[in-house]
């Protein structure tokens, strides 16, 4: 009688990559729900569009590359990328924005570099940056929170706006974005940037209704939702805590220094934490293991670097938010950081690599 031969260890803790991806997708739920509550259906529609595009692209490329389709198509990585792209986009951006962004992310950034595990850049962020650079107009079609919008942005209206550029009643995106006083409303980060550029102080700026009562109307709750999801992932040990925590600390320290030095021209620490894509970037994008650093020390360094870069781009760069650029720059430096942060092996002296 011959027995079945296998290599040790014979036991496994039954974790699987697709399960990990699914868990991360579930963790985005609080943030996505907050987004839906404050900004309407736009992002959900974009998420749907992006996911469909992602599956089609992934299927096409996998069959071209003669890869096991059933095995890899539903491993969740493409869907997660699409989900993140959908979350990032301006709610009323035209439909082809999410399609082009997802196509670029899946086909070029992910698959052409060798598929899952081989891409040097985070596909969602690379896709987003391509859109931001190529279609600056459409990518700034940020819609103010529903409470500030005069037009009733129900599901049908949002869908027709995304597909045709006009609501059922015929309002254009620009008209939707215009406040009752006739001003075009932008995101809090954008508003602050424009206003400080105009010589206004922060205190004067935040009187703008987009800031709401706390830091940034709507955005603060979206960020809180992603923070909640992120903490859930850390508790589940699905992501390493080092990256998001060091990122938030770094951003906090940077904004705190400048806020203490000149409170008039600098936003508060909590404004930086709870506006823009801070929490999404911290817990869902920077923690992408494929493109991040692998050692714990490396993860901390990447987090600190990303926080600094986000702060610098927000305050002195040309774009209102800098999370996507900061993350791509960190992706670039991650292998180098890994190289210099190898842990000391048992029985070896420090520096004795």
């Amino acid at each position, binding site marked *: 009688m011959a027995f079945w031969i296998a290599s*040790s260890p014979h036991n496994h803790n039954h974790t699987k990559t697709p399960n990990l991806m699914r868990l991360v997708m579930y963790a985005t739920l609080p943030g996505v729900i907050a987004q839906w509550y404050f900004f309407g259906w736009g992002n959900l529609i974009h998420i749907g569009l992006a996911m469909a595009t992602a599956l089609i692209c992934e299927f096409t490329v996998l069959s071209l590359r003669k890869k096991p389709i059933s095995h890899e198509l539903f491993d969740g990585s493409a869907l997660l990328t699409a989900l993140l792209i959908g979350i990032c986009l301006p709610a009323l951006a035209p439909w082809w924005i999410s399609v082009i962004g997802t196509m670029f992310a899946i086909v070029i950034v992910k698959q052409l570099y060798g598929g899952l*595990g081989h891409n040097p850049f985070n596909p969602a962020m690379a896709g987003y940056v391509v859109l931001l650079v190529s279609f600056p107009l459409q990518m700034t079609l940020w819609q103010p929170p529903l409470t500030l919008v005069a037009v009733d942005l129900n599901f049908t209206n949002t869908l027709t706006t995304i597909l045709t550029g006009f609501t059922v009643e015929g309002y254009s995106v620009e008209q939707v974005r215009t406040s009752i006083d006739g001003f075009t409303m932008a995101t809090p980060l954008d508003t602050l940037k424009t206003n400080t550029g105009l010589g206004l102080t922060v205190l004067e700026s935040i009187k703008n209704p987009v800031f709401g009562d706390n830091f940034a109307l709507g955005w603060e709750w979206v960020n809180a939702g992603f923070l909640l999801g992120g903490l859930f992932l850390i508790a589940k040990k699905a992501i390493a805590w080092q990256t998001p925590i060091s990122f938030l600390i770094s951003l906090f320290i940077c904004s705190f220094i400048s806020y203490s030095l000149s409170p008039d021209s600098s936003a508060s620490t909590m404004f930086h934490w709870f506006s823009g894509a801070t929490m999404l970037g911290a817990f869902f994008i920077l923690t992408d293991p494929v493109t991040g650093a692998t050692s714990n020390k490396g993860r901390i360094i990447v987090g600190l670097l990303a926080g600094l870069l986000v702060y610098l781009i927000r305050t002195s760069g040309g774009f209102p938010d800098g999370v996507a650029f900061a993350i791509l720059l960190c992706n670039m430096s991650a292998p180098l950081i890994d190289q210099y942060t190898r842990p000391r*092996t*048992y029985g070896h002296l420090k520096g004795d690599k």
Partner: protein
Amino acid sequence: MVESVIERITRGHFWDFHGGIHPPEQKFLTSNKPIKQLALPKQLIIPLQQHIGREGDLLVTIGEHVLKGQALTLSTNPMVVPVHAPTSGTISDIKMSVIAHPSGLNQLCIFLDVDGEDAWRKRNVCYDIEQLSNHEIIEKIADAGIAGMGGAGFPTHIKVNSKPDINFLIINGAECEPYITADDLLMMEQSNAIVDGIKILDKLLNPAFILIAIEDNKPKAIKALQQATTSIEKIKVCVVPTKYPTGGEKQLIQILTGQEVTSGQLPIHAGIVMQNVATCFAINEAVRHDIPLIRRVVTVTGQALNKPQNVWALLGTPINFLLEQCSVQNIENEKQPVIMGGPMMGFSVSSELVPIVKTSNCILVPSKVEMPSAFEKESKEVECIRCGQCSDVCPSQLLPQELQWSAKAKDHAQLKKLNLSDCIDCGACAYVCPSQIPLVHYYRIAKAEIREQQQLDLKAEKAKIRFEARKLRLEKEKIARQEKHKKAAAARKAAMNKATPEATGAKSAVAAALARVKAKKASKDQAQTNVPDPQGDLPTDSADDQKSQVSAAIARAKAKKKLKEEAVNKLSLDSGIVSTKSEVEADKVAPTEQPTVDDKKAKIAAAIAKAKAKKLSKSAESSNTVQAPENMVSEKIASSDDKKAKIAAAVAKAKAKKKLKEATSFANNDQDSV
């Protein structure tokens, strides 16, 4: 430092090692049942080598009857550990058989047909170890064939024969692998014997402290050993937290002492010796009771068994006997893995005939429900997403994900840089990998490749050194030779130029040598000419005429030539050349005869020639017979020579006839003209 370590330990504080995992322990399957004594199996298969090192020399032959405890092999080298007959019986065979090895390797095994009497050889029981010198104890341990029973199987007598200044003797009872309870049960049931064994080790090594490390999931074993050691101040029972792989030598040292064993060194370099509890038990048995290592506790477990339990198994017991004893559930229905060792580091055995050896602590037969990954036929491996969970759990603090890439790329330099050699094969990384990459498997392959490469490099290096040494030696010899020749030449020259009596002597010596050579040559020539003479002389007697004498002389010359040719023939065997030569000679003869235009004379000459030819053939024959001794080896040559001689004679006859005709026609013409 030692004191502070002890302080910490008495306070119950331990260090921690990096990483580690908590796989399902599953020890409850077997931990609550006593160790079962089994009936004797019908046949035992005893591999000659059951430890790290080399196999001993065979002491028994097929058909020999052996007694229980009788040595089957002899140790002639410290790295050789003998094996003993686990019970009495007859050696039925000594042949290659599959052994407990991941590769399903075959090795020389002794097949022992058990006679069922279990008759002991004579034993030397010694209850007072104080009577024995350390040397005697070590000899007893070596003769008992004890090798580390925790897994590696390092010869124990080498490990206990250490230098002084041992800070810690650590007794490893951690047993961190899931499922295995062999040491646990042994500690529960034989705590006093284990402590006696520890006392023997204490006498040998005289360590500052003895630490018995047991994971906190074995409360009964802890209690038993605490009771057995209450009176001994030197021994501390350390209850360490349960975590895999706490039982690893390096990890346990770190937990207890906070020290790390420097890479590439042994714990002894840090003044630490570690022994397994089962080894301590075996040492006690060997030294006090003169029982060699012939049995051990084996955990036979897994949910595919109806009665998982610990058993006392004789070394050499085939696995199928153990499985029968523990009521295995329908094992044939599909590919059932049977694992020797634990689920983390054990290896699946290829055959049911694999015997229990000194290092086998567990036979695991999992069901598909409890260990699905052990049944998977294809690897479910997907791409690494660099999640880093592997490096989080690695007890050696390696970077398994980077090692994996380098291993797949066969980048040996990078693997060395990433300290692959510090990997202890614990399997924690593969256990947690969400991409289900069989990381340890890749490392094993890479390690084997590196080892092979190193051996090749070593071989090449040796060959290079050998070659270079040879080149150097040849060069030296050449120079020495040249030097010698130069010297000799210079001496000769000097001697000649001096014109002293010796010099003239030397000159005359040269001249004399030359003369001698000449004389030799001359005598040789003479000898050659002398040989055919007796044959050639005969015809001259019958010939009175001058012309006939001439022709006779010619014939003689021919005969000589023939003879010579024959000699040549015997060497070259080229009949073609010979025949043409003889023809040429015949042609040569003809013209010399032509001037002698006399009818009668010609006739006479012809007759003589005929006679000569006849004689020639005869002489050829005779010469053949004369030379036969030389040619004995090949009779063919002789016969072919015979033929050739005949042919030559015939040719000569024909020539003679032709000449006769010519001569007559010439004479007629002459007459006409007259």
